[in-house]
């Protein structure tokens, strides 16, 4: 039987979260609660309260990035200086540590920032393609959207719950 996906638009976050909580309680068969997502114009920190904790891997990338950036730059710079016998600087060793530390510091930050951002894109699943049929510009303005995926009849249940919480509008699409 077919899987359906609906998007319910709510006026404010309270309404939306109430609806979601009820969906959660209802524990409708054929509906995986992890498929419930919220689309909101601003960030709602308390979203975990309704959806439960979900993983945020970004900082792992950060760690790897900065460590790589730092160590690599120090190693590469020092070894680059390794053939400076002809570029000797009077009064200084051929491989001077303080400057290399300065550069290590900079490269540590560089690596950190770049890889973090990379991590973000991966973790947030960007860039993505907007499915306009199931997305509305109202979300980016001031309404909260709740996206639920499930079997056709479980979705019917959900719709009811949505109506109870005075949903403004419901979009629906059938995914094979």
């Amino acid at each position, binding site marked *: 039987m077919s899987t359906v996906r609906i998007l319910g638009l709510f006026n404010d976050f309270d309404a939306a979260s109430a609806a979601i909580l009820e969906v959660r309680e209802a524990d409708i068969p054929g509906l995986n609660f992890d498929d419930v997502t919220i689309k909101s114009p601003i960030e709602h920190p308390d979203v975990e309260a309704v959806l439960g904790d979900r993983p945020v891997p970004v900082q792992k990338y950060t760690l790897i990035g900065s460590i790589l950036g730092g160590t690599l730059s120090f190693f590469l710079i020092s070894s680059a200086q390794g053939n400076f016998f002809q570029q000797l600087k009077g*009064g200084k060793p051929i*491989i001077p540590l303080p400057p290399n530390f300065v550069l290590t510091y900079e490269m540590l930050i560089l690596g950190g920032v770049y890889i973090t951002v990379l991590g973000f894109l991966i973790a947030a699943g960007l860039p993505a393609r907007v499915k306009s049929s199931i997305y509305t510009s109202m979300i980016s303005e001031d309404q909260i959207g709740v996206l639920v995926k499930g079997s056709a009849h479980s979705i019917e249940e959900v719709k009811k719950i949505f109506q109870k919480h005075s949903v403004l509008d419901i979009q629906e699409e059938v995914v094979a």
Partner: protein
Amino acid sequence: MSTTYMLRDWTKLRETHPQPSPAGGHAEYKWAMAINLDVCTGCNACSVACYAENNLPVVGKEKYAHGQSMHWMRIERYWNEEDVETPHQGAQFLPMMCQQCEAAPCETVCPVGATNHTPDGLNSQVYNRCVGSRYCSANCPYKVRYFNWYDYPEQEMAWPDPLPMQLNPDLTVRSKGVMEKCTFCVQRLTAAKNTARNEGRTVKDGEVTTACAQACPTQAITFGNMVDPYSQVSEKWRHQQVELHKDVQDKDKSGDSGLRGYRVFEELRSYPSVMYLERVRDTKA
């Protein structure tokens, strides 16, 4: 590959100059000078010799007025603080050129490594590498580095035909935007070293000298190799008890030794390779 160098020669790569030895730790050559200010008359013969030897451009009045002159060797004339009204003790002349510092302030700051410390203890300037950030000159305490503010070969003043025929083919005519300075006539040194190498020896004292030293009518300038302990210049340094690797000489610590050797701005720890001998005046006169 660089990495192998680094891992193999790590300790060597951590050594610094000058090392506590007469020649500052140089193996074959350490070129240095001793200039006797008591006989330097300030006649500018050295300066002209430098123009002739090193293809220095004549910049003309207008650019000279902007302080853009290009004399690697300049004669400075100071008056005595005591009697500025009537200089009873004459003027004070100082031939000032690149001091070829052992720990040159200009070297460390060059972003592209265009100025370096050579195995001969010279402070080299690589024209091809220079991008003209002028940081070296900014950091030079002696202000003896000269920048090509213009494309001098193209300037009407410098070398109208047939003057270019006089140019010394042993070194380049510097182009717009590079820094240049006294090289201790490195083209002469290189030639002498090659001859010596072909004969399987090192350069003998007096075999090669700089254009300024050669011209000097009073022989105020002594040039030579500090590695050779019997070279004139080594002897002068030794007898004056001026040590290359010290920023304060022992003889000065122990009060006035009456020895005339000193180096300009020694206390800045740039360890210049040019020793001056104090000008002498007869106080009875």
